[in-house]
């Protein structure tokens, strides 16, 4: 296969305790650490391994969002991606818009495989892979914990509520990855230097010929209701008594 596209979303780092802005317009991002969505590092690692096995020629990382996402794309290049594409957009896009943008890049690059995270940990949507596959008219293998390629077929094991499901899909197609697919590599300093020379193209939504449409409106963000700290018991007898007291045992 020629090309694999990997989605890299810039998100608030998973270690940050997210706070809602007092005006309810979103969450605090000033001075907050931003990172590659953790699932996307796994997606990229998988693409790199496929390439290293000689089953693909080129790995292209793609991010749709603010120009600051260049940072995350550079990290992706340092991990080993060959090229990066940033689709610059300051406005907030809906998942369907982003899916249409990815579809336009798939067409432009004639990509045969798109590997994404199973969810972005900001919006927790878990939608892009499925939407892209739908508008592309191609298969989706979501929540992957094992991927095996053979010619133009992929056998994918998926983490589902019942356990592990295996499906076979014909490529081209979309795979979204779960946590246990692989362990992403660390970026080494020389790779960061090398990555500075790799191509990072910037495209606008207009250039791609995608029309963004009004969709679901974000009305307001609010903090969740907090659970209160409860009581501490001294020993197992105290625990049993407390449970009995609540009628739970």
């Amino acid at each position, binding site marked *: 296969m020629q090309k694999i596209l990997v989605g890299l979303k810039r998100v608030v780092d998973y270690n940050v305790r997210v706070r809602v802005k007092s005006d309810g317009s979103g969450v605090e991002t000033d001075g907050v650490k931003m990172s590659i969505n953790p699932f996307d590092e796994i997606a990229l690692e998988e693409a790199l391994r496929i390439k290293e096995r000689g089953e693909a020629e080129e790995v292209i990382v793609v991010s749709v969002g603010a120009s600051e996402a260049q940072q995350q794309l550079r990290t992706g290049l340092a991990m080993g991606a060959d090229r990066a594409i940033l689709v610059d957009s300051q406005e907030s896009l809906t*998942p*369907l818009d982003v899916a249409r943008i990815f579809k336009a890049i798939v067409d432009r690059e004639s990509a045969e495989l798109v590997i994404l995270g199973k969810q972005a940990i900001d919006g927790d*949507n878990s939608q892009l892979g499925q939407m892209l596959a*739908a508008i592309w008219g191609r298969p989706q293998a979501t929540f992957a914990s094992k991927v095996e390629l053979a010619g133009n077929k992929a056998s994918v094991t998926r983490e589902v509520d*019942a*356990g592990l499901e295996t*499906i076979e899909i014909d490529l081209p197609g979309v795979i979204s990855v779960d946590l246990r697919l692989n362990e992403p590599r660390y970026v080494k300093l020389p790779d960061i230097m090398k990555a500075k020379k790799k191509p990072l193209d910037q495209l606008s939504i207009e250039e791609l010929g995608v029309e963004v449409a009004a969709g679901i409106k974000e009305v307001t963000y609010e903090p969740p209701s907090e659970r209160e700290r*409860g009581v501490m018991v001294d020993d197992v007898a105290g625990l049993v008594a407390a*449970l009995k007291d609540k009628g*739970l045992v």
Partner: protein
Amino acid sequence: MSKILVIAEHDGSSLNPSTAKTVACAASIEAAEIHVVVLAAAAAAVAGEAAQLDSVAKVLTVEGPENEHALAAVLAPQIVALSAGYSHVFGPSTTFGKDLMPRVAALLGVNQISDIMLVLTSHSFKRPVYAGNAILTVEAPADKVVVATVRIASYAAVADGNNAAIESATVDAELPDHTRFVGVQSGATDRPDLQTAAKVVSGGRALGSAESFDIIYALADKLGAGVGASRAAVDAGYVPNEMQVGQTGKIIAPDLYLAIGISGAIQHLTGIKDAGTIVAINKDEEAPIFEVADIGLVADLFKAIPELTEALD
């Protein structure tokens, strides 16, 4: 008036409890007429169960060998064909619904709302984002079909005492053959299902091995509880993936949750926010799990758990 199509989740022989919870969410929309559709190889048994659910006006069945396994690429075009005339199409936010509903929405050319936790009006909803650290109110356009998944931990199943009509439906849709089911491997147990159990006992990295998990199973069996785990315990291979509780695992709402040797990372807490009573047993009194626990015990689990199991005789 809203007309809502709920996609039934099932394993070919029985209805998954997520369906009754999805119906409960649909029923919280004012003046809603709710239909449930069962897509299956043979739908009678599952449809019979769905017809008993309160608030359901009609059950539709779509039968065919292609529907033997729930492949999103195969089901989605059929649901699109069925969706004409409905104002809403809902599925559960289980792996079944999360896989399927965005594909349905994109084929319909609309966005999808993930994880509805509260209905405000027929077109505005609350949903958690950022691992539940923020609650977002969203508004769907009034002139388009609303496609959504329902956060099942937020809803109690509707009762079953109903006797809705069952109708077979035919759909005219072109189905792809690019996606094929190969097999499913599940560590099926006799223990209560994690997602619907009234009591759940979960173990974390502290257990240290698959063998040590036996003390968790013993306690769970004494309580009649389901068993869960933290991501660290699953990653380490102590237990299978379907036991993971949290932001990227299962979101659950049992009456009683015991977190044993689990630190209480935000991603884990997201999965148990709606539990009735949270009990934490951890040897570190500073562990963040104690900030949300209703009852906390600082102890070595290898001593405390056998003692607790014993005391519950």
